[in-house]
């Protein structure tokens, strides 16, 4: 019997002909990404040997620039480590700053057909690049950096085949909310996205959907490669790679077809991402204190563009805080050149430097007691963005921007009327 995309990549990286669900695969890691939190004194240990410094990269993202002395100290540890072992891909505060998954996408560090590990949970973001990428813990990162290897329990795979095309004003985040609402968690399972409608999604849209696979509790989330992806990677990364598709007789746990034309804008209610999606009309009018667009899921140039389009020539509601955080400083600069940043600022949004920021409740928009937020980011868990009594709704950037204008949860449909799909 044949293998799925993930199984083929793990088999190749493990030097074996085949892996199957239930196996523990020990594989070569092509890219190992450390983040600021990797260097927390409670997790980091002095490394005595690095297997291959050219395969290691470092990004300071969760608390960047440092808001506390403790954050500043872990970055010092990271810089010393990079210097000692000659690690060149270091994304420190400055021009190359950003959220690790967005940095990996900007620079095409994730190579199709290879294995990537990262200390942050949203690492399956790189699955948009046909890369077997998984978020791992701090100890796994030490293992990968020092031995060049990682272990994985091989899970079964759910395959989604997309048909059709999203309607105007509907985004990849809405596809995710649809999947999360209809099928819930995919614990110990891999997700494979493909089908004739897949290429209608932009690479940024695929990134949003791949990133959110973490919230489905999937192991690996992987997209089929297409020409748009291969061209994008070749323009940015000179290393050779092997785009990987599933065998015709690959074994799936289940195969599901999703017609993109039928997807509607949705919102997730507070405290849980899965099995919690509603039509926007069901919560429309809910007062909000804060609206946020950012994170590895929704800090792409597409997301900033759609937010700017919605607020163009309008003003954020009085008493509402609208915070926008680009995924990387490179995205920030591109949005600046395109005029999106000026549009957002004119409307009354606050645009922050690229960082995980408000999404992780670290800084740049922490919620106070009993506040209500609508967010286009990764998680709406209780306490995630600040005080545990705060309520966090989750939706697409278009819905969040429209809600910021209204000061209450509202549909963005009116801003896309007349668009041709």
């Amino acid at each position, binding site marked *: 019997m044949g293998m799925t995309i993930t199984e083929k990549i793990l088999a190749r990286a493990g030097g074996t002909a085949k892996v199957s669900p239930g196996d523990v695969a020990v594989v070569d890691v092509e890219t190992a990404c450390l983040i600021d939190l990797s260097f*927390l004194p409670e997790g980091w*240990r002095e490394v005595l040997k690095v297997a291959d410094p050219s395969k290691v990269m470092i990004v300071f993202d969760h608390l960047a620039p440092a808001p506390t002395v403790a954050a500043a100290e872990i970055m010092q540890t990271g810089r010393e480590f990079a210097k000692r072992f000659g690690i060149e891909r270091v994304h420190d505060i400055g021009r190359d700053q950003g959220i690790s998954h967005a940095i990996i996408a900007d620079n095409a560090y994730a190579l199709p057909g290879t294995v990537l590990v990262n200390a942050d949970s949203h690492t399956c973001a790189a699955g948009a690049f046909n890369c077997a990428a998984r*978020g791992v813990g701090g*100890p796994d990162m030490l293992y990968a950096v020092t031995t060049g290897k990682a272990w994985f329990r091989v899970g079964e795979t759910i395959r989604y085949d997309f048909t059709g095309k999203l309607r105007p004003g509907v985004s990849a985040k809405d596809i995710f909310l649809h999947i999360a609402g209809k099928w819930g968690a995919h614990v110990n399972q891999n997700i494979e996205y493909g089908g004739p409608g897949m290429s209608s999604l932009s690479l940024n849209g695929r990134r949003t959907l791949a990133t959110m696979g973490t919230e489905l509790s999937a192991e690996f989330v992987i997209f089929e490669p297409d020409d748009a992806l291969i061209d994008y990677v070749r323009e940015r990364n000179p290393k050779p790679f092997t785009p990987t598709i599933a065998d015709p007789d690959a074994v799936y746990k289940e195969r599901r077809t999703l017609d993109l034309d039928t997807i509607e804008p949705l919102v997730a209610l507070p405290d849980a991402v899965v099995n919690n999606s509603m039509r926007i009309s069901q919560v429309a009018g809910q007062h909000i204190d804060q609206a946020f667009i950012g994170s590895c899921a929704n800090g792409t140039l597409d997301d900033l563009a759609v937010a700017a389009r919605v607020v163009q020539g309008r003003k954020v509601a009085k008493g509402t805080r609208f915070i926008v955080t680009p995924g990387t400083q490179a995205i920030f600069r591109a949005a600046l050149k395109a005029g999106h940043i000026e549009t957002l600022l004119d409307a009354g949004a606050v645009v922050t430097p690229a960082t995980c920021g408000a999404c992780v409740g670290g800084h740049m928009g922490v919620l106070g007691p009993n506040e209500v937020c609508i967010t286009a980011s990764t998680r709406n868990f209780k306490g995630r963005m600040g005080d*545990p009594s705060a309520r966090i709704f989750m939706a697409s950037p278009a819905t969040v921007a429209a809600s910021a204008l209204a000061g209450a949860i509202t549909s963005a449909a009116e801003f896309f009327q007349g668009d041709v799909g």
Partner: protein
Amino acid sequence: MRAGKVWKFGDNINTDLMLPGPYLYRSAEEQATAVFQANRPEWIKQVQQGDAIVGGFNFGMGSSRPAARSLRMCGVGFLLAEAINGLFFRNAVNYGLLACECPGVSTAFEEGDTAELSLEAWSVCNPRTAQTLPVQVVPAQLLEMMLQGGIYPLLAAQGLIASA
């Protein structure tokens, strides 16, 4: 055989609940005082060394933060759940928290029961009801890491990282 008093938790218990974001920069000891403070603030004072957590579906969903270490440090002897989130399971292996999947466990135990776990038989027994359930086998190389304190001692022994 290991016996632990059962604390029950539901489905989709996430790692933000076990290790709240504001504690990420605190010491491991301080982190272990904040377990479940948002959803069950009294629990941390009640849990005793060697107690067992019985969880539902997708236990440990969420981030890569070392929540498994907090559970181990606040006294949890072992964790049984209907299904364990893959990333949480990795951290359980790597930080040395004994964690196994056991379909049916959340209905077989009530809070306060004793769970008797056998890694020889790969089963768990509830002496109150005399019910015994099979526990899913953890592959040998992962179980060894789980029981021997995780990945740090392994890497230190190979001279790859400094000893604690």
